């Protein structure tokens, strides 16, 4: 008796959840059907580029779907902004603890000329091991930046060069929808809850 009632309740629950999911899906697809704001990053599913991580593995944005994703730009010759951002992110990941293991955390190099996978590997060894670094042909980095509505520019400097680049950290939900941006050097009291919202 009790078993049958549990089965009926269970089935009812499943049917209800299914109806809710379908309804939500319909509502969502209607909501996102119009062109998204051109100033906002594309959903990850609509991004298209191929880069290489610090271990030499090929990475495409479609690999990120299913987990929340954090993306930011930088380069290893950058003395101030990039170590600060990496240090901030390492601190946020530490605050989040094992919960943050589910995140894709990705640095995309805006200086692929100097940042080979081996260089990125050396550099990232100084920060939280959950941070991945990507590099590759300039054209692919440009495609990545275009998808994120980010920009970078090589600037000659004293016989050398530096790279100006978008300094914020982009957050995406597990299904690839854009969630929010953490501004450069934003206080962790604001940054950590933003990340947590993509984890729930």
């Amino acid at each position, binding site marked *: 008796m009790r078993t049958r009632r549990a089965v009926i309740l269970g089935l009812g629950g499943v049917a209800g959840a299914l109806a809710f999911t379908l309804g939500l899906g319909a509502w969502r697809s209607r909501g996102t059907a119009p062109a998204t704001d051109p100033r906002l990053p594309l959903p990850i599913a609509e991004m298209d580029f191929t880069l290489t991580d610090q271990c030499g593995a090929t990475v495409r944005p479609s690999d990120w779907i299913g987990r929340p994703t954090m993306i930011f730009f930088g380069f290893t*010759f950058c003395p*101030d*902004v990039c170590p600060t951002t990496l*240090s901030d992110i390492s601190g946020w990941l530490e605050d989040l603890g094992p919960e943050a293991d589910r995140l894709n955390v990705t640095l995309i190099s805006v200086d692929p000329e100097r940042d080979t996978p081996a260089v990125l590997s050396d550099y990232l060894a*100084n920060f939280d091991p959950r941070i991945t670094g990507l590099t590759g042909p300039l054209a692919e980095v440009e495609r990545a930046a275009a998808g994120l509505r980010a920009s970078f520019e090589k600037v000659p400097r004293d016989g050398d060069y530096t790279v100006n680049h978008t300094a*914020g950290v982009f957050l995406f939900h597990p299904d690839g929808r854009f969630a929010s941006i953490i*501004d*450069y050097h934003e206080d962790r009291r604001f940054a950590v809850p933003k990340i947590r919202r993509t984890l729930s």
Partner: protein
Amino acid sequence: MRTPILAALLSLVGLPAMACETFTIGNLMIEHAWSRATIGAERPGVLYVEITNTGSADDALVGIATPVAEMPMLHETVVTDGVASMPHAMSVPVPAGQTVALAPGGYHGMLMGLTTTLKEGEGFPVTLTFRDAGEVTVPVEVLSMQAEGPDCEHAGQ
């Protein structure tokens, strides 16, 4: 030839928690001079320091020099429309009665042309030149690449 001299210089100032010492020149108090470890010597290093002007006249930091870098210069990180750039700063104002920090994300010394790898736990001297107060040489503590500043309270200073 240069390396032994440099090593001697580094060891001279290689005392722990030196970033927590205070140095004065005229009405200026210099504290928390630190840098981040570098990978090799080909990437630029960074210099951060705090300057408090206890006097009644404005001054300005107009230059930095150090044996560990051939081309040290003052920069400021500026984020405009979300894009970070690093223009040269001709000088860093040190107004009367105020503390100015060369700190992550703002003004910083950019140490280009490093003559040595900056290693965590080591130190190097830097000479700060002020428009009015003149020159002062202070030790800089090299912290980890992940550091956000020296932890002076816990160092018991």
